[in-house]
């Protein structure tokens, strides 16, 4: 990439969600496959859940690496719409990349979750 090239950034959200079953320790695995057309510059993490007793661990499908050494409490990982969590240094993901989210319910009630990866699609 030419460092002086001005990129066209299109605001874009990758969204995934579901319901984690009620029994303690229930697991829900969600994934996001990025569009094959453009790179995605991941800047913020936004999410909602019905109970904070939930952990998340993210795996990058391209490398098979997890992005943490263990499950992270959901509220330590995702911000909210008004208060999003900025990655500080944006991470550019290749077109067609896959991210997998492993969610574990630590409560005894259903947990309705939505995860939003907020950033920009890059157009050269």
């Amino acid at each position, binding site marked *: 990439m030419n460092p002086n090239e001005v990129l066209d950034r299109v605001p874009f959200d990758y969204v995934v969600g579901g319901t984690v079953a009620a029994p303690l320790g229930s697991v829900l695995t969600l994934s996001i496959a990025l569009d094959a057309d453009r790179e995605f510059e991941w800047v913020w993490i936004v999410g909602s859940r019905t109970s904070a007793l939930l952990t998340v661990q993210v795996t990058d499908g391209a490398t098979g690496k997890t*992005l943490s050494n263990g499950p992270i409490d959901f509220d330590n*990982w995702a911000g909210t719409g008004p208060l999003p969590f900025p990655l500080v240094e944006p991470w550019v993901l290749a077109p067609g990349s896959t991210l997998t989210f492993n969610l574990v319910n630590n409560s005894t009630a259903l947990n309705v979750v939505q995860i939003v990866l907020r950033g920009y699609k890059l157009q050269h």
Partner: protein
Amino acid sequence: MSIWQRAGAEHLPLRHPLGVWLIQRKLATSAFVPSPQARLPLAGKMPFWYVVNFILAARETREYRVTPGSDFYLFGLLGDSLAQVGGVKAYIYDSKRKQRFSDKPVNSANLVGTASQPFFHRAPYRFPALSPVLIKIQNLGVVANAGQIVLYGVKD
């Protein structure tokens, strides 16, 4: 002003000034977050969360450690605990440089943020590969407590 302003020097690529991303105080936070220049060498590195889960009996103190497999650049600390009464206090120690991050343990409310309300260091701090990071946590309450301290940053 464009949020894609050039970061100081003509040859540097366009960078976000982080203040624009922050949802509180916005550009007023620029003195308290990593500058575009400080973040420039970290471009392309993978975001990473080192998680320390603690379980402490009443008044108990324990030491936890994480060992980065490659150089880890710390941006900030996040955390929570179940028992709000009493809380916990903790300090962090870089065993390679023999460097404490505080002269005394810091109450968790003053040490960690959450994803919604994080605190970021002005200068990312590098933990060299295979250098254990020690985290000593003391439960201040008279009941058991459990929680998590998370070191957020980037690594290769």
